[in-house]
């Protein structure tokens, strides 16, 4: 996929949750603009345009990062810390979507500057509803930090 068109970065190592999330987003016609990273390291490579994603550019950024907490290699809070700590990625909306029920995780997440924190519902249907609402809220209701992505693309041609 052309990584310049990615609107959602989904960072989750659970194949079932990824499948369910993509299915829920497909209902809103958003699933073909999702890039999936399966661990924290890949997420950072994508967002900071390094390693296998060296040809990607910071602009335009994704409109939303859906981030799980428990990830292999580099965990979600570490990823969040690096994102919010760098001026190039600091304004990208990040939503922690996690099965963790720890109050501590929630507080630390907000302290690190996460835009919102949601617990993954256990129920299938509730999960789908949550993801659908997330997609709609952050891609439709919300104004993401970059306005006209396509005009940037045009300039790069």
């Amino acid at each position, binding site marked *: 996929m052309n990584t310049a068109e990615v609107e959602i970065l989904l960072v989750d190592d659970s194949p079932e949750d990824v499948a369910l999330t993509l299915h829920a987003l497909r209902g809103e016609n958003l699933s073909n603009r999702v890039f999936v990273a399966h661990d924290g390291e890949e997420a950072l490579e994508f967002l900071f345009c390094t390693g296998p994603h060296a040809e990607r550019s910071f602009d335009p950024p994704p409109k939303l990062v859906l981030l799980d907490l428990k990830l292999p290699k580099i965990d979600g809070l570490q990823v969040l810390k690096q994102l919010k700590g760098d001026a190039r990625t600091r304004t990208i909306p990040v939503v922690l979507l996690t099965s963790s029920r720890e109050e501590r995780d929630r507080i630390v997440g907000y302290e690190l500057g996460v835009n919102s924190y949601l617990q993954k519902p256990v129920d299938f249907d509730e999960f789908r509803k949550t993801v659908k609402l997330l997609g709609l809220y952050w891609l439709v209701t919300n104004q993401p930090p970059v306005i*006209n992505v396509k*005009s940037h693309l*045009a*300039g790069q*041609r």
Partner: protein
Amino acid sequence: MSSAGTKLGKQDCAAPQTKLRALLVEDNALDAALVLRALNKDGFEVAANIVQDEAEFTRSLRAHPPEVVLADYNLPMWKGMDALKVLRAEALDIPMILVSGALGDVTAVECIRQGATDYVLKDGLARLPEVVRRALREKQERSLRHQIEQDLALKVDELARSNADLEQFAYVASHDLQEPLRMVTAYTQLLAERYRGKLDESADKFIGYASEGAQRMQVLIQDLLAFSRVGRQETSSASVDCNDVLKEVLQSLAAAIAESGAVVTHSELPAVWADRTQVAQLLQNLIGNGIKFRGPEPPAISVLAEKADERWQFSVSDNGIGIAPEYAENIFIVFQRLHARTEYPGNGIGLAICKKIVERNGGKIWAESQPGSGSTFKFTLPGHGPEERIVAQ
């Protein structure tokens, strides 16, 4: 030494007297006298200053500006041609005529090339009056032309400023009007929804009119803003793939297309050199019109492009109600509508915006149509930018 304001007596003259202020650069009194006599004989009443060096020349130039300078080519202390340098330094456009003894043709041509107006040989002074007359005539024509150019430049400036003011005003007005308008629109709508059927019938009707009016005003202001924005914003030209742009435009029009059952077809579209956002707006307005001004059948719109020299000519055709040929030019004028508001919606800015966009990007737009047989809107855009011509496509 110089003699200020030497005036020689009037001689018998054939022509009527023409006053002439002259500055002579000459060290030989006899030569000076001969020059002045030649002029007097031909009807010039000369008021002359005679100088010999640069300092005197400059002083006299400033104190009594002459209409013509007559300079000897070769003086012991100064070269006649150096007088030109002084004239230039003082930024004076005064004809300088060289009066000289033998002067080779090559030298003469060189002097004229360097800026001398003409030259006359000392043993050919009979020519001098005519040479002076011609020099003065040319000077007059030059001054006149200069004046006209200055007036024109001033007018162009004023016009540009006035245009800029107007566009600024249109922008500010429409921008500032949006906020109070938003209030009126929202609350008339709220009133309509909240109190429908709860007050009397007239109230419903009145609120309806107010609501409609407010909504129409909103669209009008938004269109005005769009129109004034085309003029204000920098047009950033780049190579634009029109197939891509068309795809985006059709997405934005998806609802209108679905609702009207419209079918939009297109040929393979080229890349043009233009502002991408404006091209999108242009196509959106034209295709939108094709959908809006439809006849009884579902709209069928086609977008084609063909090469015309260095440009591309696009045609957006529809099967709608068409336009009478006598209005084909009017429709591009802002706010010009051909139909009552009850027949077709819109406030007549769409095509004016199209025209502005096309012209800003270096093209032309026109309509070909007959009432009842659909319309075709054609416009041209450059195929490539200035540098790209060199690179092979």
